[in-house]
């Protein structure tokens, strides 16, 4: 987006008469943009406005909306399950996302080592990430089966007593993180492409100066891929705040959020309110709070990252 960062917006905007060709191009542009414009109006702008209005109302399926002002937002403050869901989500964002980034980076470093069969290894690391979410989640339900699952039988064979992953509120979230780590191939590939862009002359120069492998990694590679870390961090945080399908499938036959609401994440609770309890107004208010949280997190990360991110060239 290089050219976009050069776009200058003046305020107040300066209006001048468009030239003939500008007018023509504008018309032409609008015709080409038609699919997006219509789509934006119907599938983005209208629902945004509607959901904003819903968030101040109570939705009745057969009667008109009932305006209740800030009541939905006030309810959130005293709704214990809302706070539980927010806490669960923050737990995943705070531990799951950094863990995945760290592990992805290490995997990318491994896959960047010059060894025979490199291409084959890369395919192996990447493959789980294209397994459909539902298939992958069900596979892990099976792997984490307390009696016959591969994970606990393997632990048992080395004398460890594996937890009852899905039934234990303390282990359900770590189990989901494990599932996340298994499918992190996309993040690994993004890191890997970043590692390949690190100029070899820098590494070679450091090598000549006697820097060891660890020093080269710490002083050259990690700073050089810091923009990618920032990208992965932001997309990871945004994605994790919307974590839904895995948690929905992972409960198996149990109720949403089982066991003991330990997998009741923000989006799961939002879904439950909107589509199972039909509290569409409350769910809309939750959606707007989610949007604000995501925006604030993104801005905060961008702000803090200024000091830690190195942009070459």
């Amino acid at each position: 987006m290089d050219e976009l960062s050069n776009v200058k917006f003046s305020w107040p905007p300066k209006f001048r008469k468009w030239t003939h060709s500008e007018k023509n191009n504008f018309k032409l542009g609008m015709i080409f943009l038609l699919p997006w414009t219509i789509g934006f109006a119907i599938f983005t702008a209208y629902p945004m406005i509607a959901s904003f209005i819903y968030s101040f109302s109570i939705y009745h399926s057969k009667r008109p909306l009932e305006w209740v002002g800030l009541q939905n937002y006030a309810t959130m403050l005293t709704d214990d399950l809302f706070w539980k869901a927010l806490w669960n989500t923050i737990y995943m964002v705070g531990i799951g996302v950094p863990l995945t980034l760290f592990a992805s980076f290490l995997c990318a470093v491994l896959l960047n080592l010059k060894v025979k069969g490199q291409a084959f290894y890369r395919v192996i690391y990447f493959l789980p990430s294209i397994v459909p979410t539902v298939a992958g989640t069900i596979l892990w339900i099976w792997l984490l089966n307390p009696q016959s699952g591969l994970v606990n039988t393997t632990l048992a064979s080395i004398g460890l007593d594996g937890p009852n992953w899905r039934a234990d509120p303390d282990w359900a979230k770590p189990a989901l993180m494990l599932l996340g780590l298994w499918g992190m191939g996309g993040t690994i590939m993004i890191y890997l492409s970043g590692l390949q862009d690190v100029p070899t002359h820098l590494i070679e120069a450091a090598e000549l100066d006697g820097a060891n492998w660890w020093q080269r990694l710490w002083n050259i590679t990690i700073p050089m891929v810091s923009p990618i870390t920032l990208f992965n961090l932001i997309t990871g945080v945004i994605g994790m705040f919307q974590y839904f399908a895995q948690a929905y499938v992972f409960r198996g036959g149990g109720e949403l959020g089982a066991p003991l609401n330990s997998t009741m994440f923000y989006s799961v609770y939002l879904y439950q309110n909107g589509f199972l309890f039909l509290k569409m107004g409350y769910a809309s208010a939750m959606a707007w709070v989610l949007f604000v949280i995501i925006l604030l997190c993104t801005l905060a990360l961008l702000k803090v990252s200024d000091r830690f991110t190195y942009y070459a060239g």
Partner: protein
Amino acid sequence: MTNHPVETDIQRSKRLRTRAIRNFFQALVSHSLIIAVGLFFLVPFLWMLLTAFKSDSDVFRTPPRWLPYDNVRVEINGKAYPLYNVKTPEGIKQYAALKIQSGVADFVDPANPEVVIPTELQQGTERVAEAIMEVSFRWQNFPDAMSRGSRPTVGTSFWTYLKNSLIIAFFTIIGTLFSNTPVAYAFARIKFPGRDLLFILVLATMMLPFQVTMIPLYLFFNDTLGWGDSFLPLIVPTFFANAYDVFLLRQFFKTIPEEMCDAARVDGASEWQIFTRIVIPLSTPVLATVTVFTFLYVWNDFTGPLLFLTSPKNFTMALGLQDFQGQHTMLWNQMMAAATIFTVPIVVAFFFAQKTFIQGIKLTGSKE
């Protein structure tokens, strides 16, 4: 030239040998690390495939065995019965079990099938009969899983889900390709006032969580348009462009030399002709990327179908598999067979279009 002390042959060969040894150990450590971590990615995947081939009795065996085992069977009067090693007063004999009920098996000697020997399997602390197993891949799990589905009572099966997923994927790909290309072209090649501002608006929509628009969209499709429980809410919006694909296509279109378009313009070609006759034919790689990623997205999508599809006859593979898991929590071999069938098209697509996959991931992940 600086004065280097001249290296003798012995020193040289010694130096080379040290280096060779060092390289060997470096390679050994690298390979071991890569393989150790690789097992974490590979083993669960293999376990899905191996479980899919296991017989019902083998799935819950503890400790589990890697390869699928099944009973060795003999044919008696046209029917196959499992063979057992049975401890008899005359030593261990191979008998076929005609039926096993409440701990008592009706064994027969395959050589003399007329004489039935009822035997209690558990005599005291001793188990007198042990099933004879052999490595055997149970392919039958796949057709079984496919025809079973989750709700046999309403006449649906995984074949229905597969068909539904394919229909939705097909129309979504068509919609995505047709609607995003002109939009991306306008942002890449037509210089109209306000273009950059609009493009930033397009990118900004990526930031909007689906949860915000989900509820009004649901009510709009279900109540206003009456499209509830149909594929339309999943297909129709894809005919109206989306930020992600517009961005991807625009990045590519910008790399096509401007001079080619200018030359056509001089020859009197209209913008639409330049778009359809020059830019589109040159863009097959990126169109392939968009196709593959759209397919991947639709195939994987769970939330969309969950919101809009309510009756099992309209379920997609993702929804059907989740439903199956909720209904039959014990049929792990068939569940893994269904999961495998669900995964195979994507793995096949990946091996055919590996470059396209990686390219797409990098295009999305790169900062440009």
